[in-house]
C-alpha cells in the first residue's frame, strides 16, 4: 500500500515537473525576471552585471561554467558567500531561463 502511494506520489511529482516544464514563461513573467535580475541581483552584481560584492556576470567569464552549475548556484546559493538560495522565490524553469540569458549576455551591459 505504502509502495503504491510512493509510486503514485513519484508519478505525480514527475507529471508536475513535466507540466511546469511544458508551460513556457509568459512574456510578462520574462520581463519581470529581467527586472529582478537587473535591480535585485544587481544590488550585489551591479546594474550592469559587471560585479560588486558578487562577481561579474560577464558572459565571457560565465562560459567556464555549465548551465547546470549556474542553475544550482541560483537555486541553492553559495554557502559561505553572500549568494542566497533563490529557490523559494523562483521556479526551476525561471532559474533555467535566467541561467540561459546570463550565458547569452543579453542583460550584461559591456
Amino acid at each position: 500500500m505504502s509502495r503504491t502511494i510512493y509510486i503514485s506520489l513519484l508519478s505525480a511529482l514527475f507529471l508536475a515537473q513535466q507540466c511546469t516544464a511544458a508551460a513556457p514563461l509568459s512574456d510578462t513573467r520574462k520581463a519581470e525576471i529581467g527586472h529582478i535580475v537587473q535591480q535585485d541581483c544587481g544590488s550585489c552584481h551591479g546594474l550592469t552585471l559587471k560585479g560588486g560584492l558578487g562577481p561579474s556576470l560577464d558572459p565571457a567569464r560565465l562560459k567556464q561554467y555549465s548551465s547546470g552549475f549556474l542553475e544550482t548556484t541560483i537555486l541553492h546559493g553559495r554557502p559561505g558567500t553572500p549568494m542566497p538560495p533563490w529557490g523559494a522565490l523562483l521556479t526551476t524553469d525561471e532559474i533555467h531561463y535566467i541561467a540561459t540569458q546570463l550565458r547569452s549576455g543579453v542583460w550584461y551591459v559591456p
Partner: protein
Amino acid sequence: MSHNLIPLKRCLIALLSLIPLLAFQVNGCEIRGTGDLGIVIERASGSIQVINTSQRESLGRIEGLGDLSHASAVFSRDGRYAYIFGRDGGLSKIDLLCNNIVKRVIQGGNSIGGAISQNGRWVAVSNYEPGGVRIFNSDSLELVADIPATALSKEKYSRTVGLVDAPGNRFIYSLFDTGETWVVEMDEEKPPTIQKFTDIGIQPYDGLITPDGRTYIAGLFGEDGLTLFDLWNLEKGATRILNHYGRGEQKLPVYKMPHLEGWAQAGARTFLPAVGRHELLVINTGSWDEVGRIAVHSQPVFAMSRPDGRQIWVNFAFPHNDTLQVIDTQSLEIIHQMQPGKGILHMEFTPRGEEVWVSIRDKNRIDIYNTETFEHIKSLPAETPSGIFFTHRAGQIGL
C-alpha cells in the same frame, strides 16, 4: 531722431525688469544657501536630481554619472559640493548651486562608497576592484594616497567595506575577504599612517560610526555578532559584541545586505537591522548588550532614526521591499505601516525631521511624508530613484 528713442526706452525698461533675476543668478549659478538642498540618485539612468526640501521641488537633473547602482554621496563642509561615489569607480564632484559636474574621475573599477575627512580636505573611496582605498584632494580630486588592501593573490586584493570618517582626520574601514579593520590617519605634512587590526571577524560587510565619532562597529556576515572599536581607547583593539546573537539558529537567505550607515541611535538605545532575520536588534548604547529584538515585516535593510530619536523608519529586502514600518522608540512598538510601492530603497529625513523623503524605485517617484501624521505631502518624479542625501550630512561625523 525722436522716433529712435522709443525702442531704446522700451529696451531699457526690459533690461531693468531683468535685474531682479540677475541678482539671483551669476553665470547660471544661484546665490543662495545650501542648507535645504540635497540630491537624489537615479540609479539606472546614471543621473542625479538636485532638490530643495523647503520648496519640495527638483532644481534640475545632472546626467552622465555612470553606473549609479549602490551609489552614495558626501558633502563638502560648506554644503555646496556633493561627491558622488558610483559603482563603476566614478567619483564626481557636483556643484549644487550651478547644477553641474565640476570634476569627474574614474578612480577604480568597482566601488562601494566613500567618506570625507573631518577637515573637509580629503575624500576617500572604498573599492572592491582593485580592493583597497584611494584618497583624493577634495578640491582638485587629485590622488593623494593609494592604499591597496591585503593581497589575496597576485592580482586580487581584499574588497573594502564600511568606510567612514572619524575625528582626527581618520578614515576607518574593514576588509571583507580577510576580516580586518584599518585606521588611516591623514596629515597635511606627511604621508598617511595606517593601523591594521586583524582577525576582527569573518566577512565584515559594512561599518558604522556613532554620531559622537567614538565607536566604530563592523557588521559580520560570516558569523554571529558584531565587532566594535572604541576610538578613544584604540589600543584595546577589537571587542566582540552580541556574540551569542543567533547562535544555533537557522538564518534565512539574505536577498539584500542590510546597511549599517543608517543605523539608529535613540537615547540609551541603538537599533540595528539583523542580518537574515525579520528583526531589529535593540542594544544598550555604551554597554552594547542586547536588550531586546523587535519583530518586523521582513528582513530590514535600513533602520533610520528620525533626528529627534523618537521614531525609527525601516525598509525591507526583496521581495518585501514595498513596505515601510515606523517604530516608536519609547514603546518599541510598530506605530505605522505603509505600502507606497515596490522598490523602497532609501529614506532621508529633513534636517530636523518633520518630513521624510522616500525613494520608490519601481514607481519612478519620490514620496514626501509628514513624520508626525504620516500624511503624504507630495510626490516628485524620478527615474528609478535610490539614495537620497541632504546637505545637513556635511556637518555630521560618519555621514
